[in-house]
């Protein structure tokens, strides 16, 4: 039996597509109802909040997981990153209104002390502190674009896909922090005990994501 943690919410549909591509049984995931543990043949799926997925693997409740690279960066949990599925591709960016955007093109001292609203406080802190910039971080759990509109923050650090929500709220991308996509991760233990399964996953994910890793 393999235990796989999956993020709930809109990413779950992407995950079902990936699991299907990998040939894993996942028909019951389409309508999970209120169940958080779904067992299909030799797979047990654990449905968790996206931000909690890495912890389930870290603590050994799950052997593997599908998790966004943004979540992995934010939680910074030591897991083995097996493959980039390429699904759910988007960007992690700093965005803000025009007047703030122009301050970023000047020396860094012009942005020192700015307030940045984000769902990713750890990632934001390390991103700016690595550049020697002190920012005040406002940790929100959603609708981050609202914060600059209401004057709570000067800018935001968030994921952006098409950019429509940003534009609708008068924000523009100031700088890109990282590319984001769905990753296959596993616990350190499982990469030893379940290497055959892992190498098969890597091979099924295509030449770039899982090239030439053959078990045995």
């Amino acid at each position, binding site marked *: 039996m393999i235990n796989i943690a999956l993020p709930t919410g809109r990413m779950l549909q992407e995950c079902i597509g990936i699991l299907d591509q990998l040939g894993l049984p996942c028909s019951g995931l389409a309508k999970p109802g209120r169940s958080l543990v779904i067992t299909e043949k030799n797979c047990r799926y654990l449905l968790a909040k996206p931000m909690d997925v*890495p*912890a389930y*693997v*870290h*603590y*050994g409740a*799950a*052997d593997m997981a599908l998790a966004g690279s943004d979540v992995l960066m934010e*939680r*910074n*949990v*030591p*897991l*083995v*990153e*097996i*493959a*980039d599925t390429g699904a759910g591709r988007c960007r992690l960016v700093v965005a803000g209104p025009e007047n703030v955007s122009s301050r970023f093109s000047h020396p860094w001292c012009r942005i020192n002390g700015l307030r940045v609203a984000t769902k990713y406080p*750890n990632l934001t802190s390390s991103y700016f502190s690595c550049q020697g910039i002190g920012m005040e971080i406002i940790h929100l759990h959603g609708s981050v674009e609202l914060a600059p509109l209401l004057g709570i923050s000067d800018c935001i650090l968030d994921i952006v896909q098409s950019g429509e929500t940003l534009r609708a709220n008068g924000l523009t991308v100031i700088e890109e922090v990282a590319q984001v996509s769905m*990753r296959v991760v596993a*616990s*350190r*233990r*499982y*990469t*030893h*005990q379940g*290497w055959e399964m892992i*190498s098969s996953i*890597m091979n099924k994910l295509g030449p*770039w*994501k899982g*090239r*030439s*890793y*053959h*078990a*045995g």
Partner: protein
Amino acid sequence: MRGLPCGFRSIGGIPAERIERARQSFFRVFTSHGYSVLLPSAVQLFGSCWERLSDEIRNRMISLGTPSGETGCLSPDITLASVSFLSAHYAPEERPLRICYGERVFRSPSAPDNTADTFQLGAELLGWDGEGADVELLTLLLRALDVLGVEESFVVIGDVTILSSLLAGLPEQTASALRNALARQSFPAFREIMERAPLPESLRSPLNELPSLRGGMEVLKKASRILPRGCSTEGVGKLAGALCSSGFEERVLIDLSLARELDYYSGPVFEVFCGKHGKPLGGGGRYDGLLSSFGMMGQAIGFSLNLDLILEPSGISPARSSTVMAWPGKLQPDKALSIAECITEFNRTIEMSWVKQRHRSIELARRRNYRWWTDLSEDHVYDLTDGSRREREEWLKEGWSG
């Protein structure tokens, strides 16, 4: 007033008993094979640790000022303290040196954990050349895991010199990026760097296959086909082979891409896992280079285990170590204590309750989960689970435990 800074713990009651019993069990395995217990200082010199530890641990060191004005840190790694002690206190002719320890190490919490102190069990064997030392340490480690009741434990063995040999001819920046990607255990990052880096064709295939060189002993045969001549798997093969011959074949795996978070390893390395946790319980390896940095030549191998992790899935019973609660009854304290002393001679542990009323003493014993209670002025022992009683002398002679 808050008693402790965030991340630090005082441990009492049953968890403390479990830790102490685990330490004693661990020490018994190693001291019976000539290892002596080391009690290292909780504070080490900051500079000495900074020079020898990896970036990951450096960033988590907890510094403090010492009374003599030196910059110190709470001990982030006991191997350093052990080697420092041994190099300062023993002459070369006194080797081999064997020590074991069970102490706290201190590092700033790393997500998702939030404790700054963890208990480490470990052992070091210095100055004994040849593979016998490696086999001895790993055999005792596996035996200790059994004694500690760790279920489904196994070791994964690798060798850091294999990756070093493969990266030897590459530009430092590329070599460092590839090493970091493997240390972070990010296969996509490893492959992406390989795609972009100007690598010689002869290295592409071995590097590409390196993370897949893991599994049972059959991996060594596959490695001999893939790895270039300079990459010897002989050390790993001998060590894993010896452990398999010792009856541990089900508990030994090989991973030739294994990289430990500590920089000071210079040969075979290993990590220890159990069935319950996704992350390693600990690990270790050969650190001859670290030894030479302390002015000692020769071979050294050691390991450490996270005792907090071990105790979570452990079979070590959380039951009270005191097996009976005793009430003095009509006896004077000196007479009661003398009878209690006699009881302990039968390998029973005893806790006195000095309350005046008999029923209060029984209530206390129940609250503390004692099964057995006795009135020392009588000759009986009561089983609190069913209210039955038996002769104390008979009870003491029984082979009962627990």
